[in-house]
């Protein structure tokens, strides 16, 4: 049987030749992403701004407009009605009612009653009610979690490699998170708690490739002490390219399946990680690696530390 080789043997791409072009593109993309996110804002779900989310399903297809006018006729403030999966299920989002929880309750009951009256057989699948206080806490703890995860990983990389690698990891993560944020701001996909889980996963997984490449650069730095840094990074990138492509493929296959036929409730999570993996693959080559050049990593960066690092490695026998 002939085995599939996505990256042909002896591939030798000059990645670093395009590093400045890539940098400019990445920089522009990052700035645009952050700017756009700041300008348009994210479509934050009830988890982060408070309010109510009611998911309802009907025995037959229902016209969006008809349902919308039904909900509007209750005068509950700015309500939004969106399809959720097919034309038979919808999610209705209601703003935080003034006057605390008791009021929120009667609102949900009102909506339920109205829908059940006009659409016999309709079923309330789920109701989420989040108060302003809880949503603020969720928002700040989520932001903190993402920040801590980025810092924690960068520190670990610094500890295991050298400071330049730690900085590279942090910049790569910042790029990946900014791009994914921009994607959510642009598509208006709702950002809920699951999406935050996706961000944290991206932080962990996008660095996967970076770590593998860094590990190879470190190895090659020790092996070829006379080689200039640019060809050396190119060599390391090419050596790990097959692995980068194959692993990204397996993760993308799994996530693609989840995105296409998995449960609707976690579509946001799946698409965020899918995208994060794509971005992470790119950034591990065009951000993580060139940063080392700019920060002046040289073959002797590891000379002084080489011995102790060796003994710190895990036993592999």
């Amino acid at each position: 049987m002939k085995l599939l080789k996505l990256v042909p043997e002896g591939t030798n791409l000059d990645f670093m030749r395009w590093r400045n072009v890539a940098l400019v593109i990445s920089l522009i993309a990052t700035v645009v992403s952050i700017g756009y996110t700041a300008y348009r804002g994210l479509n934050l779900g009830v988890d982060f701004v408070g309010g109510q989310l009611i998911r309802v399903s009907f025995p037959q297809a229902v016209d969006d407009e008809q349902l919308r006018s039904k909900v509007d006729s209750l005068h509950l403030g700015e309500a939004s009605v969106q399809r959720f999966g097919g034309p038979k299920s919808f999610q209705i989002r209601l703003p935080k009612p003034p006057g605390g929880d008791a009021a929120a309750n009667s609102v949900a009951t009102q909506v339920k009653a109205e829908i059940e009256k006009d659409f016999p057989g309709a079923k309330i699948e789920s109701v989420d009610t989040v108060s302003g206080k809880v949503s603020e806490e969720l928002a700040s703890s989520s932001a903190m979690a993402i920040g801590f995860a980025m810092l924690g990983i960068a520190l670990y990389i610094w500890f295991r490699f050298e400071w330049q690698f730690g900085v590279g990891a942090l910049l790569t993560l910042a790029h990946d998170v900014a791009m994914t944020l921009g994607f959510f701001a642009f598509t208006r996909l709702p950002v809920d708690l699951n999406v935050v889980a996706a961000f944290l996963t991206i932080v962990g997984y996008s660095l996967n490739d970076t770590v593998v490449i860094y590990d190879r650069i470190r190895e090659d730095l020790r092996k070829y002490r006379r080689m200039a840094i640019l060809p050396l990074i190119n060599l390391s990138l090419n050596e790990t390219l097959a692995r980068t492509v194959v692993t990204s493929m397996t993760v993308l296959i799994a996530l693609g399946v989840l995105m296409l036929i998995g449960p609707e409730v976690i579509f946001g999570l799946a698409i965020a990680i899918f995208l994060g993996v794509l971005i992470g693959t790119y950034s591990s080559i065009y951000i993580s690696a060139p940063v080392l050049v700019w920060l002046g990593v040289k073959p002797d960066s590891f000379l002084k530390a080489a011995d102790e690092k060796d003994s710190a490695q895990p036993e592999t026998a």
Partner: protein
Amino acid sequence: MLEFPRWKVWLVSLVVAFGVLLSIPSLIASTPFANRWPAWLPQYKINLGLDLAGGSHLLLEADSADMQKQRLQTMQDSVETELRHDPQIQVGDISTAGGRLSFMVRDPRQVDAAVERMRNLTKPVALTGNRDWDVQVVDSTRIVLTPTPAGSTQAMKDAMSVARDVVRRRIDPGGTREITVTTEGNNRVLVEVPGVDNPDELKKLIGQTARLEFKLVDLSADPNAVKAGHAPPGSEVVPMADGSGAIAVKRRVMVSGEQISKAQQSFDDNGRPDINITFDSAGARRFGRTTQENVGKPFAIILDGKVLSYPTIESPILGGSAQITGSFTVQSAHDLAVSLQAGRLPVTLNVIEERSIGPDLGKDSINKGAIASGVAVLGVVIFMLVTYGRFGVYANIALVVNAFLILGIMAMFNATLTLPGIAGFILTIGAAVDANVLINERIREEIRRGRRMIDAVETGYREAMRAIYDANVTHVISASIMAYFGSGPVRGFAVVLLIGVVTSVFTAVYFTRMLVALWIRRTRPRMLHI
């Protein structure tokens, strides 16, 4: 590489077999095979999270203003009782304004004695070195008692642990349902009830503080003054529960709800719902004595600061049981009976977060999740097979074993599988083979460099190990942070990722290494097709 001692083979096989065995009860849980699983095999099962099983999630927060008010009230009662003791100290102008209790000592010579007695009323707060109230003298005759932060924190903590138990007893009087009631942070209680997708019922049970008090009606009060909200000294104005005005009652509590040992919904002589209560022995004695001394007078039954009814005591009630009448429905009488039996809540709880999931949405998610998992495994397996041939087969066996191990370990720890957890599972499937990809690519590389076969395999495993280790630590960092900060479903996702990282290193590195070693030893291949 070839040295893979027999005991290691046995150990690895044993771990794998054990993991598979542990995972089976969870996999067959909702199939007809569930009954056929032999009783002597492990029975551990994975919990389904609320988002999969359906149910209600309520986050309750203690009303700290209410808590403070109650503490002040209790303190005022004990201060008044204390100062009435011999030698009596005359005080006046008692006030609880500004969250502090203050009063004037009429005789300036008694100030020191009063302060001393106040100090004795305060208690040390465990481990902090502070007392729960701060006693100060202002303007030489005014004594001010201020609650200390340490005291308030401790009081809240105590109240929350009582509240947790009360909430549990109210929702689950029989102690048979699989509900979760935990305290969160300093002043919150989290309630999760699977299977109940209408939380209104739960909220009715939790919403009532159920502070029941029996007090004598103050017959000397002027009805017009009561209407204006004024009561004679030693009495207070309490509104009627049905909204029909208010009455004046004596402040002193005759008997309170804490002394109830049993409460049951029943019907009165006219067939109206009421509640039958039985006092404990101390309560029965007090109730008997009070009713004996007050025959012919009305007494008020007060629930959460509202008068339910005020029947007249017709004869002494000595048996220790009584009926609470009021305008009840069968349901509200039943709910109150449950609440009384479970005890009163030490503090009012407000709902600040509420989620309910119907059973169908969860079932649909499980089905779609299971199908997606299957397809994802199949996709990855095929891809690995066409990419690495024999080594792909080994990676695939490891992948399947890994899936069983994750489920098995989750079952063993009785972990909760949530909807994002399913996503974590699928993600792990895609990422777990990364270790094998790293190893196999390295082997390919070493062969290209001209290494001999066994040497190449050995170097491949050894050199790849370092990157595998570092890459997995980054996952552990992000997943741990997620587990720490995340709530319910997100934590479920993190747990699956964490377990997946550990099991995938085991299956992708140690397990495949064993398979490769056994294969090489058995067939002594001359060439490696990779």
